[in-house]
């Protein structure tokens, strides 16, 4: 029973990582950049939903929608102001700019909401009791897993069936050729950032409900772990991000429960290193042989 509850907690945490990793992987696939500010967009999403629920008194679902709207606008703004002028610049320059954006968001949140951790009331506070109360599952865990599966299916359909999704795949394959086929590359990239940021808002609400606290640095560590998850599954691949996130969450929960609380992150990262040594392009990543 203990094992089962750890497993459920791991899957729920893993689903959050997966949602964040989906945003990472989409942006990476199309813009070939590590968007370090993604974790901080999650944090902004958390704060917006918190303010919406406590100060404005909105119901949770409205708060989530508001957070998504704000983060989408924020994502498009960040892309337009900070990343678009650097298109074609060395990838490290874009990386440093992303780090600058990340510092900016963290410090802006610090100025607006203060450094003290805020208590975050879960969007689905009750727990489901099974087997005469031996196994209790928080509703928010179920909600997280459900949200993750829905998002994953929706994204797969979106990139596979719709015109915009196909444009995204074309851009991630070859920007030049996509442009020649009449695809508006800039608009497609903005759209990717918008979707990624909206996902970040959802992840923010779920993450804060899981942790029940929120502060300006909340997003950075889950951001790094989700990035790890995206690489783990094969960066650029949507099912890879899903699988990577889920595995990472389960490994982390198990390591915390059975091996060592202190070394849980180390164990996660050690597994990542071993996987990358065996499969250098991640679990589901395509290995592209070099041509001379």
């Amino acid at each position, binding site marked *: 029973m203990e094992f089962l509850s750890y497993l459920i907690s791991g899957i729920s945490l893993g689903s959050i990582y997966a949602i964040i990793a989906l945003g990472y992987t989409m942006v990476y696939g199309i813009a070939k950049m590590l968007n370090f500010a993604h974790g901080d967009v999650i944090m902004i999403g958390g704060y917006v939903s918190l303010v919406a629920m406590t100060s404005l008194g909105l119901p949770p679902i409205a708060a989530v929608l508001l957070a998504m709207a704000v983060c989408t606008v924020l994502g498009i703004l960040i892309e337009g102001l900070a990343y678009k002028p650097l298109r074609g610049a060395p990838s490290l320059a874009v990386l440093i700019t992303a*780090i600058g954006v990340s510092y900016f968001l963290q410090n802006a949140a610090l100025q607006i909401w203060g450094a003290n951790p805020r208590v975050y009331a879960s969007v689905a506070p009750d727990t489901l009791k099974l087997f005469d109360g031996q196994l209790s599952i928080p509703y928010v865990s179920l909600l997280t897993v459900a949200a993750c599966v829905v998002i994953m299916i929706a994204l797969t359909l979106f990139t596979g069936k719709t015109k915009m999704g196909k444009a995204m795949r074309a851009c991630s394959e070859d920007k030049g050729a996509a442009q020649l086929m009449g695809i508006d590359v800039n608009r497609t990239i903005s759209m990717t950032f918008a979707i990624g940021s909206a996902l970040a808002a959802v992840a923010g609400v779920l993450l804060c409900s899981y942790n029940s606290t929120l502060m300006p640095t909340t997003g950075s560590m889950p951001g790094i772990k989700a990035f790890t998850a995206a690489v783990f599954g094969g960066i650029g691949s949507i099912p890879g991000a899903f699988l990577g996130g889920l595995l990472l969450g389960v490994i982390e929960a198990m390591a915390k429960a059975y091996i060592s609380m202190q070394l849980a992150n180390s164990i996660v990262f050690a597994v*990542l290193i071993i996987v990358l040594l065996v499969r250098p392009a991640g679990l589901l990543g395509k290995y592209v042989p070099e041509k001379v």
Partner: protein
Amino acid sequence: MKKLKSLKTTTKVDFATYFGVIAAFIVVSLLKSGGFLNRSLTGMLVPICCYIVMAVSLNLTVGILGELSLGHAGFMSVGAFSGVIAAMSLQSAIPSGWVRLVVAIAAGAAFAALAGFIVGVPVLRLRGDYLAIVTLAFGEIIKELINCLLVGVDEKGLHMAFNISGTLTIDDLGMGPGGTAIIKGAQGATGTEKLASFGAGFILVMLTLVIVLNLVRSRTGRAVMAIRDNRIAAESIGVNVTKYKMIAFITSAALAGAAGALYGLNYSSLAASKFDFNTSILVLVYVVLGGLGNIWGSIIAAAVLYILPEALRQFSDYRMLVYAIVLILVMLATNNPTIKTFLGWKSKGKEAA
């Protein structure tokens, strides 16, 4: 004068770098003895030297070798804590502070080089962003491992324990009554004797410059840069890729370890959480802003950016916000193709990573 003109441009740049650093040291020392520096600036002199060494050493990996490393602070951490252990445990054996500082820095460099070797073997097999994420992973692993470390010293020698379960304390080391704790797990090193000084920092910076500039201008350095520019071409003309990558990576790690040891001995207490991902990123920012592969650029960027938050003090609470905006604007200004053409800067061609 004639002789100076006949020198190669790279040699001239190198000499200018050495003289610049020496001149800066003399000016700052004069200002310091004249009492022109306030307390917070005086306190920043040693960390600035450490971060200059960090930036130059990371430039060796990112700029010269062309591999993005996001875990450079891990090597600094290894150097810092092994340096602190060496300095504290040799307190009775070597009475002279200067000698102990040198031994500590050497120990820091040696252990960081060892860590660099252990990390380098798997890491350098990977490419691009995968390599970057694995260096990040190693940085975090090193941080957590040191967080679990308990070290103390008594008359019988060093005592070490590894606090995996989180239940051990410094008393579990079984030290004699005269023992002192050096590293207390997550609390880090406490009660460290401050051995570092600005002079020592200057010497370390000069030593780093001599090592890195000579390496870059040597046959080895040219091989490393050939690998950066085109790995396959370099391999096909017989350059041993693994060997030269390892040389550059381990040298970089050892220098970071030396910087770490100096840094660790500049504070009476130091926690492993200081050397986290953000510190690695901070150093990477210095390197990129200073210019990839540009050694004197790294020095200036490290010094200026380390002082910048202090210089922005007039913005008080908003200074980190302003710092972030400055960082973004500088990147936009130096990399935007339109602005570059406008200012008449030529594009330097290919990207390094």
